[in-house]
């Protein structure tokens, strides 16, 4: 569970103050996949930083349930000098949970999701899609409850992107994790989410919320006629 209650945040620079978020309120229930979409530069990444506690809100309140956060970024940020396996162990090392048991769990997870043959390889030997999958397993290794996804597919080419985002969504669902995805891609948000939150331009606040319950997978949802309808609605709300 994660709830933003009337949250505001401003950036301070020498030349002035920029309100990135103003009066933002929304809520994510446990086990849900929620997407936040908004025009570019509307402070989407700020929302994730606030959720993760990397930034403190200027005012308002962020209520968090039990469990840790896991962060997944635009680029996979795998460390080239480590093998895939060592990359996956990184959060364990940092959180001082590098026990044989935790490592075995992480390896198990990697094997379950098709990275078994790549564990001893260098990230540079992996395709873009596999790298993003390795990054997801790394995020999951320390056992977080809520995943914060900062446009994790935007650096991939279109074909890989469709493949990887379905892939990532199904892994998150089958691991029963809560996810907060920020993206500027409307169709990605519709295909993946249980709920879509639409933001205004900066300083951002919630314009509309849509609960989506058609289609059982991203693929079936894309093929559903309601996909196009929802797309139109969201597009108008974003003012594009």
């Amino acid at each position, binding site marked *: 569970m994660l709830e933003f209650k009337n949250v505001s945040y401003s950036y301070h620079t020498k030349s002035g103050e920029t309100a990135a978020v103003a009066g933002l309120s929304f809520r994510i229930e446990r086990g849900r996949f929620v997407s936040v979409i908004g025009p570019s530069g509307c402070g989407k990444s700020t929302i994730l930083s606030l959720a*993760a506690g*990397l930034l403190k809100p200027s005012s308002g309140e962020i209520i968090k349930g039990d469990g840790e*956060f896991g*962060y997944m*970024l*635009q*680029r996979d*940020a795998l*460390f*080239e*000098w480590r093998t895939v396996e060592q990359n996956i162990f*990184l*959060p364990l*090392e*940092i*959180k001082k949970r590098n026990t044989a048991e935790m490592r075995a769990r992480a390896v198990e997870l990697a094997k379950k999701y098709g990275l078994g043959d790549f564990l001893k390889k260098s990230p540079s030997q992996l395709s873009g899609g596999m790298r993003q999958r390795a990054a997801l397993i790394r995020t999951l290794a*320390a056992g977080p409850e809520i995943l*914060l996804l900062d446009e994790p597919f935007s650096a991939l080419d279109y074909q890989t992107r469709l493949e990887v985002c379905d892939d990532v969504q199904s892994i998150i669902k089958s691991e029963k994790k809560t996810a907060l995805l920020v993206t500027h891609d409307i169709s990605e948000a519709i295909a993946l989410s249980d709920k879509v939150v639409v933001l205004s331009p900066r300083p951002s606040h919630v314009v509309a919320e849509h609960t989506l319950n058609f289609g059982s997978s991203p693929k079936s949802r894309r093929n559903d006629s309601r996909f196009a309808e929802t797309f139109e609605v969201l597009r108008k709300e974003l003012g594009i």
Partner: protein
Amino acid sequence: MKNTMNFSDEHIAYLKKLKRKKIIIFTARWVILAVILGLWELLTFYNVMDPFITSSPSRVIRTIGSLYESGELFTHVGITLGETLAGFFIAVVAGYSIAVILWSSETVRAVIEPYIVVLNSLPKIALGPLIIIWIGTDCTAIIFMTVIVAIILCIMNMLAGFLAVDPTKLTLMKAMGANRRMMLKKLVIPASMPSFMNTLKVAVGLAWIGSIMGEYIVSRAGLGYLIVYGGQIFKLDLVMTATFILCVLAGCMYGVVALIEKIVVKQF
């Protein structure tokens, strides 16, 4: 060789072309050296150039021989090599440590920056008289000179390497809850390894500049001393010989660093 069985003719031709290019480059390098040395020897042999002024390859070899017989060769080489290596290691270790400190605090970095800039632009040889008076005339003074010549660049290069680490990776570490120390150990140090290797290469050259410059100012032995001494008594054979030995030593030291780089960077 059995692999060639599976290659197409086109690929074999391509491989041949690569190999031929490699041979040409290798041969051309040695030919240039041979031509220079050969011309130098011939022109001095027929007195087109005065060997008293320009020396000659055969005279250099004879000088090396006589230095070897008198037992001076290894004394001079040993002293200069020792000073250079000592200065090199001190500069690299201290420079790296200072760069780590500067990396870890933006405020310290901003405070120190103008000092680094001024020290970097200052011709270190200007400090010669001070070094002699403060430190003395033994090899400590020369090592000190080597260190101050090389250290500033070590600091600046390493700091640039540390600061160039991908901000996405830093954010990731921060989101995982890593402190500065962990970021340094697990991310910044390994990620800046290529910069470190580059710094070592540049520091090799600077360490030689420092030690020879130091020997010019104050010394009783060493290759720099031989060059100055040879110049003063107009014995150009000695000057050329010492210069030649310097070329070989500097080349070898660079070679060692390049070899280490090859081994280390493979993993990065």
